[in-house]
C-alpha cells in the first residue's frame, strides 16, 4: 500500500467531511430561511448566525476540489467531467446563494428581499443535493471507460445512489442547521429549533444512513461497519442531548455522527476513489489516479502547516462571534438615505 496516496485519500476525506460539517449547517440555515423562519426579523436572525462564517465555510469546498485536483488529477478530471450538468447546477446555485447573502439587505423592499430569500433557500438546497449526489456517486460508481471518460450521454450518471446521496446531504444539513440554530440563537427561535431537531432527527438521518449502509453492502469491511454502528450511537446521543436541552452537546454529537458516517463511507470505498460501473478494470484507485510522490510530499508539508492554522483562525472566528443572536438584537433595517435624493426633503432656508 502506498503511503502518500493513502494519506492524501484520508486528507481529501477529511476536507469533504470538514465541508459537510461546516457548510452543512449553513446550507441548512439557508434552506430554513423558507421552511422555518416566520418573518423578516427571524430571517435576519438566521442570516446573521452564519453571516461572519459562511464564506470561510465554503472555502472548504474549494480546498477539497483543489486538493483532489492536485493529489488525484485523474479522479478530479473524471468525476467533474462525468457530472458536468449536475455540477453546473451546483455552480449556479452557489453563485446565487453567495450573492444573495450580500445583496439581500441592500435594497429595502419586500420584493427585493423575497427574490434573494428564494435564491438563498433554493441555492442552498440545490448545492447540498448536488454535492451529496456527487459524493455518493464517487463511492458507488459512474459509467467510465478505460480513459476515465463517461459513456452513455449527459445523464448516464443518474442512478438511485445519486438521489440517495443528494437527499442524505440535504436532510443532514437541515438537521445540523436546527442544532446550530438551537445553539446560536435565543428566544423563540432557539426553542422551536430544538423541538424541530428532536422531532425530525430520526427522519432526517434516514437517507444518510441508507447511503452509508449501501456502501457497506458494496465494499464494507469490519471496521467500517463498526463505524456505522458507532454513528448510530452518536445520533442517539445527539437526540438525547437535544431532548434534555444540552444544545452544545447535541450539535457536537451530530458532528461526531457525521465524522463516523463519513469514515465508514470513505473507508469502505478505499482504495477505490471512483469505481467504474462498466468494468472494475477501469476503476480509479489511489494508485492509478494519484500524483507523484514528490507532489504529494510537497502538499503534505504545506498541509501540515496550513490546515492547523486554518482550523485555529476559523475556531477563533466562532469564538469572537460566540454570543447568541436573537430577534431582540436585530436592529432596524438600515434606512438607506441617499444624500443627494435627500436634498429635496431638507428644510429650505
Amino acid at each position, binding site marked *: 500500500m502506498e503511503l502518500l496516496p493513502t494519506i492524501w485519500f484520508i486528507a481529501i476525506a477529511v476536507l469533504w467531511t470538514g465541508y459537510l460539517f461546516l457548510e452543512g449547517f449553513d446550507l441548512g440555515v439557508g434552506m430554513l430561511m423558507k421552511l422555518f423562519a416566520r418573518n423578516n426579523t427571524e430571517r435576519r436572525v438566521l442570516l446573521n448566525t452564519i453571516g461572519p462564517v459562511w464564506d470561510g465555510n465554503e472555502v472548504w469546498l474549494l480546498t477539497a476540489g483543489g486538493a483532489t485536483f492536485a493529489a488525484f488529477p485523474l479522479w478530479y478530471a473524471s468525476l467533474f467531467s462525468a457530472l458536468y450538468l449536475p455540477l453546473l447546477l451546483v455552480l449556479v446555485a452557489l453563485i446565487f446563494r453567495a450573492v444573495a447573502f450580500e445583496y439581500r439587505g441592500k435594497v429595502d423592499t419586500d420584493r427585493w428581499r423575497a427574490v434573494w430569500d428564494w435564491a438563498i433557500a433554493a441555492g442552498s438546497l440545490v448545492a447540498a443535493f448536488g454535492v451529496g449526489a456527487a459524493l455518493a456517486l464517487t463511492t458507488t460508481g459512474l459509467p467510465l471507460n478505460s480513459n476515465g471518460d463517461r459513456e452513455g450521454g449527459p445523464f448516464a450518471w443518474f442512478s438511485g445512489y445519486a438521489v440517495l446521496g443528494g437527499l442524505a446531504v440535504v436532510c443532514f444539513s437541515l438537521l445540523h442547521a436546527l442544532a446550530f440554530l438551537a445553539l446560536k440563537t435565543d428566544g423563540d427561535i432557539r426553542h422551536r429549533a430544538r423541538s424541530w431537531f428532536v422531532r425530525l432527527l430520526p427522519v432526517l438521518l434516514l437517507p444518510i444512513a441508507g447511503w452509508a449502509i449501501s456502501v457497506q453492502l458494496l465494499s464494507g469491511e469490519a471496521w467500517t461497519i463498526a463505524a456505522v454502528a458507532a454513528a448510530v450511537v452518536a445520533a442517539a446521543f445527539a437526540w438525547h442531548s437535544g431532548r434534555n436541552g444540552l444544545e452544545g452537546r447535541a450539535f457536537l454529537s451530530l458532528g461526531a455522527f457525521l465524522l463516523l458516517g463519513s469514515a465508514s463511507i470513505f473507508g469502505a470505498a478505499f482504495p477505490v476513489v471512483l469505481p467504474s460501473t462498466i468494468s472494475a478494470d477501469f476503476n480509479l484507485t489511489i494508485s492509478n489516479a494519484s500524483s507523484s510522490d514528490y*507532489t504529494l510530499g510537497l502538499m503534505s508539508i504545506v498541509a501540515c502547516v496550513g490546515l492547523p492554522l486554518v482550523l485555529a483562525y476559523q475556531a477563533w472566528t466562532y469564538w469572537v462571534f460566540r454570543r447568541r443572536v436573537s430577534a431582540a438584537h436585530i436592529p432596524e433595517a438600515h434606512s438607506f438615505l441617499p444624500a443627494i*435624493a435627500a436634498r429635496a426633503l431638507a428644510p429650505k432656508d
Partner: protein
Amino acid sequence: MDALEIARWQFGITTVYHFMMVPLTIGLGLVVAVIQTVWYRTGKPEYLRMTKFWGKLFLINFIMGVATGIVQEFQFGMAWSEYSRFVGDVFGAPLALEALLAFFVESTFLGLWIFGWKQLRRGVHLACLWIAVIGSVFSAYFIIVANSWMQHPVGVEMVNGRPVMTDAWAVFTNNTALVAVPHTLFGALAVAGGFLLGIAWYHLWRRRHDGIDTVGSDGKVIPGEADIPGRDKADHKVWITSLRIGAVVAMISFAGTALTGDLQGKLMFEQQPMKMAAAEAACHDGTGFSILSVGNVGSKNCDDVVAVIEVPGILSFLAKGDFTTEVKGVNSLLDQYKADYGTHLPDNPIYGDRAGQEIEYVPVMEVTYWGFRMMIGFGGLAALAALVALWATRKGTVPASRGLMRLAVVGILAPFGANAAGWIFTEMGRQPFVVAPNPDPSGIDQVFMFTAAAVSPGVSAGELLTSLVVLTAVYAVLLVVEVKLLVKYIRGGVVSAMPELAHAPADENEDATPGPGGTGKPGDSDDVLAFAY
C-alpha cells in the same frame, strides 16, 4: 462550433468576467486598508468615512469575485478533463495551495472585518483587513504561478507521457510568474485608482452643482455645508482626498505596469517568440515597432499586412534592450515551430475530429495585435487622465463642467479594459498551445500540450453549449444587479454606507475619537455582532 470552440468561449467569457471583479477586489482592498490605517493612526473622521464608503463598494464587488471564482476551479475538471489529467501533477498544487493558504485567509478575516467593527479592538479589526488583503495578494500569486507554468513550463520531467513535478522551487519561482505577479498587482491598483478618481470627481462635481461648495475669486474652493446628513465640510475632504489618492495610485500603478510589462515583454520574446511577433503583426525579421499596421492583420497570409508607420529600432529595444538586434518575424518562426513540433496534429483519438489536421502556429493576429495596443493604450490613457485630474483639482475641487464629470466616470472603465485586453492578448497569443513549449530545450519530446487535446472527451457539445448559455445569462443578470447596487451606493454617498451619520450625528464623534494608537474597546454588552445582513 464544436465542443472545443464552445469550451474555449466559455473559458474566455467566464475568466474575463471574473477578472473584472478580481482586480477591483485586490486594488480597492489595498487602498481601503491603507485608508483605515490612516484613520487608526490619526483618528481623522474623514478617513473613517472613506473606510466605510469605499469598504461598502469593495464588499459589493468582492462577493461577485468569490461567486464567479468557484466556476474557475471547477471548470478545469468539468470542461478540460484531458488537460487536468495531463498537467494535474504540477498544475493542481498551486490551485490547492491557493485555496488552503489564500482563500481561507481572505474569506475568514474579511468576515471578521465586516462583522467585527464592535467586537474587536480597533487594532485587531484593522489587522483583520490587512490579513484578508494580503490573502488576496497571495491568491494572485498562486494562480499566476499556475498560469505562468502554462506559458513557460519549468520544474518538470516527462514520465509516462505526463509532466511530473521534480523541482517545486522552479515552479514557484518561475521567472514568468515573478514578473507577471507585480504586473497584475499594478494592473489591479490601476483599476482601484481610476475607481476612486471617477467616483470622487462625481461627488465633488455634485457638491458644486448643488451649490454646497463654491469657488472664490482666487479659484480656490470654499467648502460649504448643507443641512443634509453627510453633506458637511468633512464630506468635501472625503472626496478631494479620495480623488488625490486615486490619481496618485493610478499614476504609480501605470509606471509599475510599464516597468514590469517591459521585463515581461523581454522574457516573452525568449519564451514565446511567436506570441510577441504576433503582437506586432511582424511578419518579417526586423527592428521596427509598428505604430499602425493596415491590411488584414487577421490574415494568416503575412503578405496582406502592411506596416504604415513603423519606428525603427523600437522592437529591438522592447525585445532585447538595444536598437539593432534583428527580431525574428512570424515567417521565420513558423518554420522553426514546424520543425520542432510538427506540421500536423498526431493521429491520436484525444484530438477528436482534429486528429491529423494541419497545425496553425500563428495566433489570431487581429486579437494579439490590437489586444496588445488596447492594453497599453487604455493603461496610458488612464494614467494621463489621472495627471490631468490632479492638476485640474489643485485648487481643491473639480471644474463645474458636466461633460468632464461624465468623462471622469466613464474613465473608470479604461483600466478594466487594459486588464482584460492584456489577458486576452496573452492567452490568445499562446495558441495553439494550452501549455506552451519551453524553448529551452525545444523539441517534440518536451513538455507542451495543444489546446485541441485539452477538452473533456466525454462531454458533449450540447452540454458545453448549455453551460455557456446558462453561465453567460447568469453573469449578465448579475452584472446588471451589481452595477445597479454600486450606482445606488455611490450616489448615496458616505451616508449610505454610514447610516449612523443620519440617525445620530454624535455616533460619529464617538467612533472617530480613538486618537492615535486607538484606545477603543470592544463595544458594550448589547452588541452581539455588527449586523451586516
